[in-house]
């Protein structure tokens, strides 16, 4: 749904930009990243490696399916490893309606039932990693004030550099700075500053590919420079627009697993 929204937005905005030759604002740039078309549906295997300051590594693997249903985007995740969370599944319904909270359910195989849970705090860390739910892409552009501070070449790509300051002063980051590839609308690097304005984390996109005409991030790395902890994310066996059936996102599949 958000993709449709982007497409509509693009139809309105792009001609205007072309005609006026005006520079994009920080908000427009971040909007384009947030709304980058990632397909009607997608599926893939997510491998998350958590590496501590001693170099010890813990690995989590997840199989995920995402589908755009128009007003709602549904996601189902099946936890494959480690062994003690295997067969746990998680469903998220995310709405385009402004202000409407996500709906979430979790299936815990030990309890053998699906539980509705309150929508995760956006500042919570995902599965003990260095990524919060916001970092994974759920943060609405309207939650921050964005400012285009410069344009520069970074890792061989022409980038916009956008500074984003949260409207909520209590938010966990005081600001972020993002390098966004101009023609692909991918955030190539992002710096996160803590409440004391000190650098906290650096997110780097290590690999992205064009799959069926869409830019998909396949590898990224988040380094917490203060705690010297790193999380590597790798997406594999990615399938875009493969026609995932609606029933994949139901309680039936949560219990059945893969």
């Amino acid at each position, binding site marked *: 749904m958000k993709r449709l929204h982007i497409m509509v937005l693009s139809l309105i905005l792009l001609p205007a930009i072309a005609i006026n030759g005006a520079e994009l604002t920080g908000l427009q740039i971040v909007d384009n990243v947030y709304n980058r078309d990632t397909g009607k549906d997608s599926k893939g295997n997510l491998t998350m490696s958590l590496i501590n300051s001693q170099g010890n590594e813990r*690995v989590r693997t997840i199989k995920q399916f995402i589908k755009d249903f128009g007003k709602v985007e549904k996601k189902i995740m099946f936890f494959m490893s480690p062994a*003690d969370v295997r067969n746990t599944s998680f469903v998220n319904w995310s709405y385009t309606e402004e202000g409407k909270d996500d709906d979430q359910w979790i299936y815990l195989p030990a309890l053998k039932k699906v539980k509705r849970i309150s*929508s995760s705090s956006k500042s919570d860390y995902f599965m003990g990693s260095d990524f919060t739910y916001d970092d994974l892409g759920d943060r609405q552009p309207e939650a921050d004030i964005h400012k285009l501070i410069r344009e520069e070449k970074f890792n061989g790509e022409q980038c916009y550099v956008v500074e984003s300051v949260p409207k909520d002063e209590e938010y966990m980051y005081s600001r972020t700075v993002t390098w966004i590839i101009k023609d692909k609308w991918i955030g190539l690097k992002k710096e996160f500053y803590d409440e004391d304005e000190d650098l906290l984390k650096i997110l780097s996109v290590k690999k992205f590919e064009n799959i069926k005409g869409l830019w998909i991030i396949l590898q990224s790395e988040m380094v917490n420079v203060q705690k010297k902890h790193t999380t590597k994310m790798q997406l594999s066996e990615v399938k875009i627009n493969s026609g995932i059936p609606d029933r994949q996102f139901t309680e039936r599949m949560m219990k059945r697993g893969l």
Partner: protein
Amino acid sequence: MKRRIFGTAGVILLLLFFNTGIKAESLNLTGYVRNYTGMLLEGGNDFSILQNTFNLNLEHSKGKIAFKVNPYIYDYQNKDLEIGLRQAYIDIFFKSMDIRIGKQQIIWGKADGVFITDVISPKDLREFLLPEFDEIRMGITAVKVDYYIGDSTLELVWVPVFSPTIMPEADSIWNPGFDLPLQPEFDYSRKKVEESLKNSEMFFKYSTTSSAIDLEFMAGYMWDDDPTLHTVKNIDPVTMQPESITIIPEHHRLALAGGSFSTTLGGYVIRGEGAYYFGKYFLSEDPMIEEAVVEKDYLQYLIGVDFTLLDIKMSAQFIQQYILDYDDPIVNDRVENMMTFLATKDFLRETLFLELFSYIGLNDGDALIRGKVKYKFSDELEILLGANIFTGTEGMFGRYNKNDMVYAKVKYSF
């Protein structure tokens, strides 16, 4: 019986590994090895439990067919090895319907740690309510049919053979005992429910999920998992005191209908569950009542809330049991109120977990308070230290006030 199960499990395992029909690499094999040591805080610090567990999950699916086998072994000091199958079932998947046949755990309802509409799988109460939930709920042989319409499900369960609650052994510290003036005799002649079609159990559930609310409606025609303790007293006509007491355990038919819901309100999850039991048996102290039992309708319901406060995940439930058309000599209170509280928090990137859970009986002022600390040394190895504290002197929890204990569980998952 258990030997027979072991034999069956052995055959299945052999078939799995040596039969060419299923390749070992297509099997999903997980499980754990665990040591569980508990020690009482009172008296001579007796060990309340010394248990070693091996639990295995074997799963395989191919197209529209899948199966799961969950054998387990409990090893106790100075007791026979206990070997069994917690689950062993076959799934057959159709476009809009699934059928599961075999031994399975079936859990209904929205309540946590309380059993209201969750009445299909009987309970193993040999260690009261202390084991993990998947160990309290026993598998039962059943046929379960689920029919799906969008986000709604119609579920029908047929249990051909009744399985009762497993109660603690007579010498167990978890045996609640009897508050009687004489040592009773037992007559088990009416306890067994014959294994026949007319004695089977049926359950039905409709459930639906939506953004606004999750709903379940259910009905069941079953046997009461807990036997009613019919009591016959021979009274001395001179002293009017009982000369002997005979307890005759008997399971009775029970019909119930109920439902549950779950919804969100801001950052809160609101849950509710209730069931109306048509004709449940209760003990009575009325000397004119034959065998000291009466049949009454009974209502049990719960309201609960889950929320997060200061990064601590919390949950509270209020449970009420109500006997309709109440007679004063009934041993149970007309209204019985209970609450539960849960608080959990994790630290160190989900490697250290703290949990506090408690049942609080409001009628008798008793409680069970359970504190746990769990640390995961790695994804495979974890250690859990806990304490179970019983407060009060009467009621469901107060009766165990000499059973305060600390325990440790060391678990390796694979």
